[in-house]
């Protein structure tokens, strides 16, 4: 029973950090006329409460889509509606049609922050706790330490409780999906993941690994017997959950199309604002966004994305395993982040979640990645005046990881899961023995660069001719790091063999 009191303490620490971060500013605070994501969420409560369902996604005199029009799937809308009912009970001014635009007050901030906390507490945190308890082959203390590190991951805390979003809902559902599918409750897992997709369409980044893993399981069970039954059941669950979520929007073809148009705004271009992906970084040298026509951009991003994730997914279909599934989630989401269309910097959280899940297996690399992922959002966090919480939570996360996993002692080839890879390389290059050293140096360079860039961005003013210099540098450096991780995770997946999996993990 000792485990339960320690786990409770870990959850309490996580909640305390979350709430103290929420005391800070939110996106768009005091910045009319558009404000920010906080106002967007409040506006959606206003729209969903006051207008009939048919009008939620359409442009009308009551619903100006240019002013934070709904661009998430129906579950977000239902969640906003639920929050709106509570808001109406407390203070109807918060969601009054038209007049509540730009409403800001201490009480309202408290209400909005509380909705995030409750959603987190109900969906994401239980999933994390359960996931850590279900981890195999590690001691109780390590499970609890793992939970602490995941709950202290700064990126999610800063975006949800600082900037203001509800990522914990979609990521929580996705985590329940991972749990279900890994523990052979495939139907429940699929249901949870469908809910995740129907909350935020970005969860589609995770869809391929889920699909490949489940398909692989069906193949393994034999397509002529149990496998086929499973396949049919899964298909039914997926279809049923989509139909249930989209029911009000399936009545007319135009409704469905309009929602899809809002969810996938192909008109908005290859990327918007500064994001740490390939296209934005490439754009620094060659303005592809302006040179290439729109449809070419679409095709190009499509090709690159799918080419980079295909090997891992195919391997997952052929050799479905829980470990392969988690790593494929990472590499797939990272491929999408780096090469896909209209990626936002917050989408890195979709990669961070699976990396958190493999924290216990490759603590050193995971910690490194999670630090870079938080750093990549620096321009956004600075804009929201979240410098102090960012620095503090990052340091807390770093200390937690170092003390829980002794990450600096786990940098050997075997612990980085690169043993089979380096053995293969040594067949051609016998002198290839410095992999571990190289990676340690890369880590040092990476951390020093991140710290320096942070200091520069905070203390210096950019030169007049290049006002975005620091944001672009941050994105560029992060992109380089992410490319390295893409290669690394793909190597782990491709070189992961049965013999590697049978080795007992040393923790």
């Amino acid at each position, binding site marked *: 029973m*000792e485990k339960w*009191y320690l786990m*409770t*303490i870990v959850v*309490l*620490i996580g*909640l*305390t*950090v979350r*709430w*103290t*971060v929420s*005391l*800070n500013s939110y996106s768009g605070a005091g910045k009319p006329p558009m404000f920010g994501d906080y106002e967007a969420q409040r506006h959606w409560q206003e729209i969903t409460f006051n207008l009939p369902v048919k009008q939620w996604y359409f442009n009308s005199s009551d619903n100006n889509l240019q002013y934070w029009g709904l661009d998430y799937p129906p579950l977000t809308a239902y969640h906003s509606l639920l929050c709106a009912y509570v808001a109406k009970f407390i203070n109807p001014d918060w969601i009054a049609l038209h007049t509540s635009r730009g409403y800001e007050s*201490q*009480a309202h901030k*408290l209400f909005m922050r509380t909705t995030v*906390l409750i959603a987190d507490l109900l969906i994401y945190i239980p999933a994390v706790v359960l996931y850590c308890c279900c981890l195999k082959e590690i001691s109780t*203390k390590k499970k609890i330490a793992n939970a602490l590190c995941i709950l202290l991951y700064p990126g999610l805390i800063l975006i949800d409780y600082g900037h203001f979003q509800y990522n914990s809902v979609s990521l929580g559902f996705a985590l329940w999906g991972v749990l279900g599918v890994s523990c052979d409750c495939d139907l429940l897992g699929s249901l949870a993941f469908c809910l995740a997709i129907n909350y935020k369409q970005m969860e589609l980044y995770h869809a391929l690994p889920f699909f490949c893993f489940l398909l692989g399981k069906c193949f393994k069970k034999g397509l002529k017997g149990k496998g086929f039954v499973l396949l049919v059941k899964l298909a039914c669950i997926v279809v049923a959950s989509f139909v249930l979520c989209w029911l009000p929007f399936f009545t007319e073809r135009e409704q469905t199309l309009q929602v899809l148009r809002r969810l996938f705004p192909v008109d908005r271009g290859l990327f918007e604002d500064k994001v740490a992906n390939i296209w934005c970084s490439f754009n620094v040298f060659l303005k592809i966004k302006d040179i290439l026509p729109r449809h070419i951009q679409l095709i190009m991003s499509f090709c690159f994305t799918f080419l980079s994730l295909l090997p891992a997914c195919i391997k997952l279909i052929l050799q479905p395993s829980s470990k392969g599934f988690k790593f494929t989630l990472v590499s797939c989401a990272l491929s999408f982040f780096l090469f896909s269309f209209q990626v936002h910097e917050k989408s890195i959280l979709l990669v961070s979640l699976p990396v958190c899940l493999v924290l216990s297996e490759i603590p050193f690399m995971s910690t490194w990645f999670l630090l870079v992922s938080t750093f990549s959002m620096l321009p956004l966090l600075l804009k929201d005046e979240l410098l*102090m*919480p960012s620095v*503090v*939570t990052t*340091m*807390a996360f*770093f*200390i*937690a990881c*170092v*003390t829980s996993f002794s990450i*600096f*002692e786990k*940098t050997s080839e075997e612990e980085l899961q690169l043993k089979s890879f380096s053995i293969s390389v040594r067949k051609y290059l016998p002198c290839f023995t410095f992999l571990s050293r190289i990676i*340690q140096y890369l880590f*040092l360079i990476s951390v020093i660069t991140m710290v320096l860039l942070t200091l520069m961005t905070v203390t210096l003013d950019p030169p007049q001719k290049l006002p975005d210099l620091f944001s672009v540098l941050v994105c560029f450096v992060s992109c380089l790091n992410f490319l390295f991780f893409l290669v690394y995770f793909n190597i782990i997946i491709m070189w992961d063999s049965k013999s590697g999996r049978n080795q007992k993990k040393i923790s």
Partner: protein
Amino acid sequence: MAAFTIATGTGNWFSALALGVTLLKCLLIPTYHSTDFEVHRNWLAITHSLPISQWYYEATSEWTLDYPPFFAWFEYILSHVAKYFDQEMLNVHNLNYSSSRTLLFQRFSVIFMDVLFVYAVRECCKCIDGKKVGKELTEKPKFILSVLLLWNFGLLIVDHIHFQYNGFLFGLMLLSIARLFQKRHMEGAFLFAVLLHFKHIYLYVAPAYGVYLLRSYCFTANKPDGSIRWKSFSFVRVISLGLVVFLVSALSLGPFLALNQLPQVFSRLFPFKRGLCHAYWAPNFWALYNALDKVLSVIGPRGFLRCLTLCALSSFMFGWHVHEKAILLAILPMSLLSVGKAGDASIFLILTTTGHYSLFPLLFTAPELPIKILLMLLFTIYSISSLKTLFRRSFTLVAQAGVQWHDLS
């Protein structure tokens, strides 16, 4: 990589605990702060912009200087750092000035001064010997004591939300207790004397110090049965103790004696007319009575700690103008006792849970409500479960239950 680990200071658990709570304190910077914030800003202004002769006379603000001179000097030193943050806060007429830089400076100064508290906790941990208990780190008495002190709920919310400077003051007190345990009595006495001249509320526990030092330091030897050997009374030691107290007081009050301001200073420190003196001093008589009652049974540093806690509790229960924050005066020393014996642990748990709960009304704003509930739950759950685990283990050992303090009496 090993060098990197050491460089980041996270090589051992104590640093991790200290760093962790420091980071939590940084997260508490934007929380609600009470009028005490303005009090200290005002004192920064007074000590910075006015000559010493004016310090205890200045009354532009209602929050006049009512702490002893060492604290005034402390504010004076702080003000020289403050001027780099925001010059405006040092203007005596800028009442209720609280720019973001002022807030940042004040909060950071509290966090920074807690370094003394961390050092004192480390010294106290050295005084515990937990060899007989299990090898699991989180079950070691040192670890538990460190958490109970470094992450103390009361200290966190009073110092880092409500706003006060209790951290380093309790650091001085714990350090003096640790020195007494380490048989460095003169240092212990000196540190306590210094503490008294920082905040005179610690006078409440002065009788405990007085009796203990008399008993264990001035009487150099005991009879075999543990009672006092009256002939071993050492005048030298009494005189040297007296000298230490006198020198510290001279350093503190000297300048004001020279300026003929002693009555004014005392009227600020003890703001009562003669008629009310009875009520103010009564609890000290109680405390003194309790303490003296136990003179013959005071054996060793642990007895001193009990005495001190008793003095603090009596003063809390019966004292005049007692703040709810004064419960910390009893809780923190009690923490040292709690990792020693099971009986002390249960008393500690009751005291700390009710004491901390009594601090709730200090934070009455809505955004701070979840913080105080979460931190309270955190501390209470941890203290109950860790102490329970600690003493459940020791019952299974053949040797006597509990851990031995380094008391050789």
